[in-house]
C-alpha cells in the first residue's frame, strides 16, 4: 500500500485517461467527443512528464552545484505530442464546422439518421433503375 501515494501521478493519468475515453464513447455531441479526446490525450502528456522526473533531481540546467538532473527528453518528446494534440483538435473542430454546414446538426444520432436516409434513397434509386431496365 505504501506504493500508492508514490504513484500519485500515475493514478491521475489513469483517471484522466479513462474519463476522456468514457466521454468519447458515451457522448453523442461531436464537440463533446473532441473534448473527451483532448482529455484522453492530455493524460498521456502527464504520463510522459512524470516518467522524466528523477527523485531529488533538479531542472537540467548546467551548473556546478547541481549533480542530479531530471530527464529532459520526455518533456521534449511531449512538446511534439502536444503540438500533435492541438493539430488533432483543430482538424476535428474544422470537420465539426463542416458537418454542421452539411447536416445542420452536431449530434451523432441525428447525423446517423440522415445518413441512413441517404443510404436508403441510394438503394431505392438503384432498384428503380433495375426496374426500369426490365
Amino acid at each position: 500500500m505504501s506504493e500508492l501515494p508514490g504513484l500519485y501521478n500515475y493514478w491521475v493519468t489513469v483517471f484522466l485517461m479513462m474519463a476522456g475515453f468514457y466521454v468519447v464513447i458515451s457522448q453523442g455531441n461531436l464537440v463533446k467527443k473532441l473534448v473527451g479526446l483532448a482529455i484522453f490525450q492530455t493524460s498521456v502528456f502527464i504520463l510522459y512528464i512524470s516518467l522524466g522526473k528523477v527523485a531529488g533531481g533538479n531542472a537540467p540546467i548546467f551548473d556546478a552545484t547541481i549533480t542530479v538532473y531530471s530527464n529532459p527528453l520526455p518533456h521534449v518528446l511531449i512538446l511534439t505530442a502536444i503540438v500533435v494534440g492541438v493539430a488533432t483538435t483543430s482538424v476535428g473542430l474544422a470537420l465539426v464546422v463542416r458537418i454542421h454546414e452539411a447536416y445542420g446538426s452536431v449530434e451523432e444520432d441525428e447525423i446517423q439518421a440522415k445518413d441512413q436516409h441517404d443510404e436508403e434513397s441510394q438503394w431505392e434509386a438503384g432498384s428503380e433503375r433495375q426496374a426500369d431496365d426490365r
Partner: protein
Amino acid sequence: MDLLDHLPVLVVIMPLMSAPLCVLFDRARPAWLVSMSASWLSFAAAVYLLIQVSRDGTISYRLGGWAPPWGIEYRIDLLGAYVLLIVTAIAALVMVFARRSLEKEIPADRIARVYAALLLVFAGLTGITATGDAFNVFVFLEISSLASYAVISMGRDRRALSAAFQYLVMGTIGATFILIGIGLLYMMTGTLNMLDLAARLPEVADTRTVRAGFAFLTVGIGLKLALFPLHLWLPNAYAYAPSAVTAFLSATATKVAVYALLRFMFGVFGAEFSLNKMPFDLILMVLGLAGILSASLVAVFQEDVKRMLAYSSVAQIGYMVLGISLASNTGVSAAILHVFNHALMKGALFLAVGALAYRIGAVTVSSIAGLGRRMPWTVAALVVGGLSLIGVPPTAGFVSKWYLVLGTLEQDLWPVALLVLIGSLLALAYVWKLVEAAYFAEPAADAAAVREAPLSMLIPVWALVIANLYFGVNTQVSVGVARQATDLLMGGGG
C-alpha cells in the same frame, strides 16, 4: 557525402517539402506538377535504395550527423526498402491518375490543397517506413493520419465528413495508444532507438510495464491497420473519400501499418516475446480469420462498389495478419508478399472504380450495368483486379494465397487453410456481382453517352493490372525479396 547518401531521408523530405509549395501555388496545374515530380523522384529514390540494400545490406543514416542511439537514426533494411518501393510506386501512379480525377471530383479552388494534403500523407507513410526511431514512428503516423482525415473529408458526398470524423476519433485513440506504448517502453529502457530497444528489452521483458506497453502498441497499430474488430472506420472512409485518395490510401496506408506491426513485433520485441510469452499468435489468427470471413461476407451484400472493395480490404488485411500469426518463415513471407500484391490489386481496382466514377458519378452495382461494352478497358481492368483478389492464377493474388495456404499446411492447420479457401470463394461471389452487372445486365437508358475513360487515367490503371499479371507469373523479385526480408526479420534485430 554526396546526394545519394542522403536518399533515406530525401525520400521523406521531398514530399514533405513539396506540400507547402502546393499551398503556395494554390492552383491546380502547378500543384499537380509539384506532386508529380515529388512522387516520381521518391519512386526513383526508393528503387535505388532497394537495389543498394539488396546489394550492400541495411543502410543506417544519421539524421543531422548525431550517432544513434542518441540521435535519430533512419534505418532502411530490405523490408523497409520493399515497403518504400510499394508506397512510392503507388503514389507515383496515383498522381498521374489524380489530375483528371480530382478536377472532376473537387471544387477547383481546393485542388491544390488536396495535393498538399496527399503529399503529407505520402511523407508520413514513407517516414514510418524509413525511420529507426520509435517516437518518430508516432510523429510520422500523426502527420499521415491528420492529412488523411482532411483528404477523406473532401469527398463529394456529405457522408465523407462524418466518415472522416469517425476516423479522426478512432485514429487518434489508436495513435495515443501507440504513444503510451512507446512511453512505457522508454520508461523501462531509457531509449527510443529501435535497435537499442531490441537489445535492452529482453532484460526487463518480464515486467508488467513492458507487457502493458506491448498491449498498447499492438492495439494502437491494430486500429491503424483496421484489424478486425477495429476496422469500423475503414469502410466509410474509403467509400466516401475522393477516388484518387481511396486508391492511394487503400494501397499504402494499411500496408505501412502492417509494416509497423512487423517492425515492433519482430524487430523490437522479438518473436520470442511476442509469440511465446504473449499469446499474440493465437489472437492474431482468430482475429485474422474472423476478419476474412465476416468482412468478405459483408462485402457480398454491398451495393456501393467502393464500399464493397473497402470491406474486401478488411478481409485482405485478415490474410496478412493470418500469415504473421503463423510465425513461420513461410507464413510471414506470405504476409509480406500479400502486402505487395494487395497494393497492386487494390490499387488497380480502386483506380478502375475511379475511372468509372469519372464517367458515371456514383459507382454502384446497378449503375455499372452494361458498361462492359461502353468502357471495355476500364471494366477489363476491374475484372483482372478482381481475379487477383480471388487468387486465380496467373495473377499476383494467387501467389500470396498459395504461400499462405502452404504456410498453414506446414503446421497441419488444415481447418485454417479451408477457411482461407472459403474466404476466396466469398471473394468470387462479390467479384462475380461486378462482372455480371458490367457484362450481362442491360445498360441503363442514360448509359449510351458513356465513353471510355481518358488515357491519363487508363495508363496508371493498366500499369497496375500488368504488374498484377507480371508478378503472378514472374515471382522471382517479389517472392525473393519477401523471403530475404523475412529471414532478416525473424533472425532478430533487423
